[in-house]
């Protein structure tokens, strides 16, 4: 039995304040009807909406949960707990684990760990090639048919750079309506690359990661997708040129979708000037012109989704000189605030747009049927309540993720997740994770761990 929730005076998609009644994991009533039904029940818990914004639970297409293999930096449990705090009810767990998520066995293990943890749904991403080596297709069909029902395939961290392998993958996943999510990085053009190649890299003496190394692969892939009639997803678009190529591809009717990360919406290569490895990420932070372009692309729908590329790392991998540091930054618990700051507070997007790019579109791309749904009666109660008027300073030590490598330390950001509901069960209340020992998943988690 889940609690019956009466969300009083919330604003669905930022619209007019109304009431929402959640019963048995489903949105049971809205508006006056919700208030009336709630008043007639004696098992209702009330959440005072106070004008907060109600969105469908967020869905991340690009999360690194690090388990199995690097449980010192994140586990499925800690990462999904962080996701819940960030407003997520589903995440796609990237395949670059150890062992790699390239078999039905490993993706099922990750999927089960997610179920056991119970913070949000975990949809494992399957590797495109065995061991992410870019040579031989992994058993994509077996992963698709497994209990994990994998639909998104990616060698993320590496690029499927061989055009024949990429073509085969694009074709093959059509059999189960899958999608190949490409980390677009021409490997020869980026050997030893440390940061965006441009004015700042020239001055800092760091090996450059040129925009063309991303754009060349994006251009090739959209043409391949057109040729074989397949679905392509472009991970973490970071350059103005990539936005242009995706825009062109969509205008031609090519079935391509694209994502942008919160850090590429907010930060530029100027951040590298202090050689602080917390700003080292792949693809690298680009120029202000690129930031402007990805914001415009997100606003006009060229870029379909915001995905975190949440990449936890051990302290020693960031507490060192730039060249020795790992690439990547955390993002689950700050993404909504970054999107609010860069897109909503600037008037570029509405809260309905936020729901589109952080919930509806990622669910659709990942073929996740019970997420990213309309806020309507009968729909699963995957919900997040956001206080857009709140302001907070990022303190990595206070975050739920097991790692501390946020690039936003000390920054003040707008907005705060007040509550998250996964199928009617509160995973976050008053901004804090609900560590409920009676949660069904917790007991199961103990069993799995044993």
């Amino acid at each position, binding site marked *: 039995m889940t609690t019956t929730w009466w969300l009083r005076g919330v604003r669905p998609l930022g619209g007019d304040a109304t009431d929402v009644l959640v019963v048995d994991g489903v949105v049971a009533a809205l508006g006056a009807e919700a208030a009336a039904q709630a008043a007639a029940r004696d098992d209702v818990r009330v959440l005072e909406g106070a004008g907060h914004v109600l969105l469908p639970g967020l869905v991340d297409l690009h999360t690194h949960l690090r388990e199995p293999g690097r449980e010192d930096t994140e586990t499925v449990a800690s990462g999904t707990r962080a996701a819940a705090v960030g407003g997520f009810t589903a995440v796609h767990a990237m395949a670059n684990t150890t062992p790699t998520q390239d078999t039905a066995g490993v993706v099922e293990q990750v999927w089960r760990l997610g179920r056991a943890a119970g913070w949000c749904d975990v949809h494992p991403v399957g590797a495109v090639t065995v061991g992410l080596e870019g040579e031989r297709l992994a058993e994509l069909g077996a992963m698709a048919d497994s209990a994990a029902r994998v639909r998104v395939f990616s060698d993320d961290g590496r690029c499927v750079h061989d055009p024949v392998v990429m073509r085969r993958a694009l074709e093959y996943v059509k059999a189960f309506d899958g999608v190949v999510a490409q980390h677009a990085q021409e490997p020869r053009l980026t050997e030893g690359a440390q940061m965006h190649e441009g004015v700042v890299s020239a001055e800092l*003496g760091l090996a450059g990661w040129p925009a063309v190394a991303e754009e060349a692969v994006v251009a090739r892939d959209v043409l391949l997708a057109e040729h074989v009639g397949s679905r392509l997803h472009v991970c973490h678009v970071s350059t103005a040129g990539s936005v242009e190529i995706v825009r062109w591809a969509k205008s031609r009717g090519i079935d391509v979708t694209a994502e942008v990360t919160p850090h590429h919406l907010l930060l530029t290569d100027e951040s590298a000037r202090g050689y602080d490895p917390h700003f080292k990420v792949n693809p690298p932070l680009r120029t202000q012109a690129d930031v402007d372009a990805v914001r415009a692309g997100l606003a006009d729908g060229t870029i379909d989704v915001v995905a975190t590329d949440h990449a936890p790392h051990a302290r020693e991998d960031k507490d060192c000189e730039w060249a020795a540091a790992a690439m990547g930054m955390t993002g689950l618990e700050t993404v909504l605030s970054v999107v609010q700051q860069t897109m909503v507070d600037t008037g570029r997007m509405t809260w309905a747009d936020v729901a589109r790019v952080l919930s509806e579109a990622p669910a659709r791309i990942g073929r996740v049927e019970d997420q990213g749904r309309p806020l309507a009666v009968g729909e699963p109660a995957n919900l997040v309540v956001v206080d857009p008027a709140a302001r907070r300073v990022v303190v990595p030590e206070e975050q739920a993720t097991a790692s501390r490598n946020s690039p936003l330390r000390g920054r003040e950001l707008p907005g705060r997740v007040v509550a998250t509901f996964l199928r009617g069960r509160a995973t976050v209340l008053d901004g804090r994770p609900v560590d409920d020992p009676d949660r069904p998943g917790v007991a199961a988690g103990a069993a799995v761990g044993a």
Partner: protein
Amino acid sequence: MKHLLSVADLTREDAVRILDTAAQMAATQEREIKKLPTLRGRTVVNLFFEDSTRTRISFETAAKRLSADVINFSAKGSSVSKGESLKDTALTLQAMGADAVVIRHQASGAPHTLATAGWTRGAVVNAGDGMHQHPTQALLDAYTLRRHLVGDGGRADVYGRDLEGARVVLVGDVLHSRVARSNVGLLHTLGAEVVLVAPPTLVPVGAGAWPARVSYDLDATLAQVRPDAVMMLRVQRERMSSAGGGFFPSPLEYARRYGLDARRLAALPDHAVVLHPGPMNRGLEITADAADSPRSVIVEQVANGVAVRMAVLYLLLAGRNDGSAA
């Protein structure tokens, strides 16, 4: 001045003060007894993660002539590849009471990280970091240029002077060169005009923002600019192999297009000098004719390096009170 990490940290006044101090140091080095008591009781650590015997010896000589205690710490060849070792090494040196750490590291920014991460209380001197900076090299080059190009060749009249109006051509592998980056910045700060000459493959994307002109044609540049000085940069032969990046077709072609030989030397104005940071690849970027000619001040650069490094250590440490000297 708390550290010396990049020439970008130096104002014109800072730089001239270092050059003037170096001139005073050089004067003391002509005495019979070269050693000064200035830094007695201070400890200077030479922390070299990358081989460079000549730079290390230069710093070591400079520190010893100021009576500092010198510890040479070579991390090269040990199992050190990850950054944690820089941190641990720094903490170790801190525990040993280093007043200054002279660091050479293959990673751009490592001295900056050492100076700002709280791993050491000592002054940090960048002795070359990756492709980024080598500020004492630029200072010794500026010192050498000032001696030859400013005033009447005497000593006293150069005090307080910069390199206003001097025309300097830098030739070679700009892309990988911390010497080039340091010189472009410092020469600009001191008022000189800089022209970079290199094959386009060895000019970094983004160099358009530098205070220097870029040319791909050495002969045309020498004819047009009529330089007061030509600074040849070291080119590694392996840069031509495809594994090394394939930056140019062959050493022979490089030497023909960008090498300094007797013919190009003869095309320089009479007063122009030739510099090279060393070690030289004779026959590649410079021929023996050019390297050993009377125009060449390459050997003098070595001696000036000691004076400039004495000045830097003196200015960083002499006035410094670390609070623990009770």
